[in-house]
């Protein structure tokens, strides 16, 4: 058993699952976290424009929402024109193909959206 594994065996005794054994100091940690959060946000801004547009379309209607929707639609078109929306689209398509598979090979019925299905509990 490695030292790391031995340390992890003690993880149940910590207050929280975020307490890792052999923790280093706090110096630079906030900067490290902030850079990680910022990079992921920027990455998603460029590669996930479709979701941002969907979110904007769901906002309560009004002049501000209208302007935002126009901006997000433009952003989808721009990122799409250079191929940035393609990775998401490919994965989404593959998942939908898997979702449509049936055991009895009957035509796949479209799954209802969460809001239209019986109440979830």
């Amino acid at each position, binding site marked *: 058993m490695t030292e790391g594994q031995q340390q992890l065996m003690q993880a149940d005794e910590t207050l929280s699952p*975020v307490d890792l054994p052999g923790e280093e100091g706090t110096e630079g940690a906030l900067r*490290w976290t902030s850079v990680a959060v910022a990079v992921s946000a920027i990455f998603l801004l460029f590669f996930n424009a479709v979701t941002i547009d969907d*979110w904007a379309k769901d906002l309560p209607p009004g002049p501000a929402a209208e302007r935002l929707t126009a901006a997000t639609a433009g952003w989808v078109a721009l990122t799409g024109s250079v191929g940035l929306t393609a990775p998401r689209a490919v994965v989404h398509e593959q998942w939908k193909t898997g*979702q449509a598979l049936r055991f009895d090979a009957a035509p796949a019925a479209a*799954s209802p*959206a969460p809001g239209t*299905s019986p109440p979830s*509990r």
Partner: protein
Amino acid sequence: MLFPTLTFGLFFLALYAIAWAVRASNEWRKILLLLASWIFYGAWDWRFVALLIGSAILNWGTARLIARANEPAVRKTLVVAGVVANLAILGFFKYFDFFVEQAGLVLAAAGWERDLPLLQIILPVGVSFFTFQGISYVVDVHRGKVPAAGLLDITLLMSFFPHLVAGPIVRASDLLPQFERTPQLTRGMAAMGLLLILWGLFKKAVVASELSVGLVDPVFFDPSAHGRLDLIAAAYGYAVQIYCDFSAYSDMAIGIAALLGYRFPHNFNQPYRAVSLQDFWRRWHISLSSWLRDYLYIPLGGSRGGTLYVCRNLMITMLLGGLWHGAKWTFLIWGGLHGLVLSLERLWRDAKPEGWPTLPRPLGILITFHIVTLGWIFFRADSLDSALTYLGGIGRSDVAALTVTPLTIALILFGLAIHFTPQHLIQGIGLQARRVPAPLIGLGVGVAILLIDAIRFEGVAPFIYYQF
């Protein structure tokens, strides 16, 4: 405001930036977190925020009076009053209509039919969680486990948005000491926070949502219209769904709190690998089971006394634990089933003849999982009739149409398989992740969110435990 939405993502990004920007003043930071928590909670209904503030003031005032009182009798009276007041809030919002309905049925059965007034009360989101938190606080002050804290700290303890609506039930002794000074972030905490948020997002948005909409909801909606295979698959499906839904909320809550510099306790530990029901309750909703143990089971007498006395305590604890989830007979039956099996385990442990072999571990896991899944059928069913129809259908249904799909089967198997991965796997990944340069971690998080978003179900259903 739901965690797996862009609205929450933007809310959190803004809060993260401001909260760390004002870290020079811990008091201002706490005020900011409090205001943010009220905005988060008020997104459901602003009236609930007033209830939350009222509840916090009640517990703050009661604890202050307890701390000042010298006479044991006065202190006891105060703690009882505090507990009763918290239970009154919970009882009014959660159980008033249920008990009035039951009273109406009893009166009707006795020939005194009356139209009793139902209030159609709207259940405030998370009321069960913050009232339990309030109760544990006043009891802990009475027991001398925590000092009476200031109004700001108590209000933030009860309102802090990551745990507010669906736990974990973070006790005063865990969080108040953390509020006393500006929190410090470490790379490990941050890495674990990001990992837990991602893992929770995947479990909720992909596994739980897909199983809910694709299998569980349609089958439980009308069990009589489904065949044996669908009924069995949906029962297993719900076992996986409720785990992936509820543990996802806990993981995200723990992760979000960690990015703000706070530590929340463990709430799940691979519950479906439990070898007995007693073991299950050490792994499932740990903050509730430990709460019930410390503030109900032990005060009732706990494991002291004879076997039958212990069984009585177990039954009371589990029945009330069932009722905590809601005012429905199905929850009581769920709690009763758990209480009964826990009692039988206790009886067997005390009465087992010397030298008899213990159950092989895999068999213990299999039996425990199926008892838990049986309980989930009652827990999920809309009514007792529906649950009985469901169970009857498993025995005799001959409907041929299939709702279960290869994808839902794969997700059920995945949801069960993750219970048998090495313990603390995610912490092991966290140990490696904290050594990786920040831009690479950020890129990894971005790619992971993109993938999850590409395969997640359209729309976001509320978390199951929001209703409790």
